């Protein structure tokens, strides 16, 4: 039986996830990163992507994140996400709207935003839209 550890996903709006889990895969800055109990202490930046969580009973949960920070320790893993949604919370229409808005902002090169910011926003929107669409089919 795999060891368990405490895993939390917190956003400024709410606590999205807080349970004991056996493994977590998260989109860290340099690429996807798997975490098991007893992981070496690590502070990481997250990029937009999906977190895949495996629960002690073998079930799997997914959460879409828009970037943030991760604090990994041997017994505990905490994610401070800029925004995060579970499959039930994410809506395709809203994701599409955000995506279209981000694209438009990108093509107009809205003043007051750096290209980097716009790119990141577009990436976030794209990520959420993909996640939402896939969840709908499943």
């Amino acid at each position, binding site marked *: 039986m795999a060891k368990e550890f405490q895993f939390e996903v917190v956003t*400024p709006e709410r606590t999205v996830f807080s349970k004991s889990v056996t493994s977590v895969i998260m989109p860290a800055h340099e690429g996807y990163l798997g975490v098991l109990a007893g992981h070496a202490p690590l502070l990481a930046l997250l990029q937009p992507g999906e977190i895949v969580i495996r629960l002690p009973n073998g079930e799997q949960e997914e959460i879409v994140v828009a970037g943030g920070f991760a604090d990994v320790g041997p017994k505990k893993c905490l994610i401070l996400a800029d925004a995060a949604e579970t499959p039930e919370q994410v809506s395709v229409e809203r994701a599409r709207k955000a995506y279209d808005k981000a694209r438009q902002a990108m093509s107009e090169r809205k003043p007051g935003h750096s290209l980097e910011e716009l790119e990141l926003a577009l990436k976030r929107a794209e990520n959420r839209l993909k996640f939402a669409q896939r969840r709908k089919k499943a």
Partner: protein
Amino acid sequence: MAIGSIKSIRTKIRSIGNIKKITRAMEMVSAAKLRKVQERLMAVRPYASRITSFLTGLAGRVRNLDFPLFQGRDHVRRIGVVLVMGEKGLCGSFNSNMLRFYGEFQKKHPVPVDLTAIGKKTVDMAKKSGVTPVDSYVNLKTDVSFGEIQSWTNRLIASFLDGTVDEVWVLYTEYMNAVTFRPRAVKFLPVETEKTEGKEDSAGDYEFEPSPKEILDRLIPRYVQTTFHRLLLESMSSEHAARMNAMHNATDNAKDLVSSLTLIYNKARQASITKELLDIVGGAEALRG
């Protein structure tokens, strides 16, 4: 008692009854607003406290932290103060407590102040005491947008970085529960981190992805905005709670007043009836005689 005074008591009862209705309605409105703000406050608090410990943890582990926002200045010549008060009155001692607190704060920090006024009451206060705020924001909404907060914090950070001010403080009212809240002052900038002197080498057993500096670059703006947002929500919650309590008390007082006035009114009415009866009986006696 004269008929006139009976009538005037009745008018009084009616007008106090109307006041009671208004204060009751205001209490309800404040309660609803409080619920809304409180919900957001409770949602943001876990994130805020965790990002704080994340930051202090990170800053404590990195040696030679070369980040201007962390560096305190030995000589404080001028400070920036963000004073958060309410939008409206009729909320008990909420605003006056804050004012008194600000007075004490100034005694403790006898240096020139660049005032950022948040809330209409702060602006009014500044005008009365002849201070011109550097910045002022009124009509704070429950759902302050992230962009707004960002523009405020950016301005505060800019004035700190270019040396206009050497410290930035936020004076706000901390919300504990619906009946307790107290004014507090927090040092906003420079960002204060716990000194972990003994754990000089603990940076060794932590990994960073990517480098600590890059994480800090992203983390600090987040931290500053989240903290600021939380402080605003604390103050707004306190204001609504204070108003709710004040209006509740006002309603209770109106109730007492109505019942004591009703007693006087009934006595006066009874007295006039008795007097009339006496007149009639007296008149009848005289006719018979």
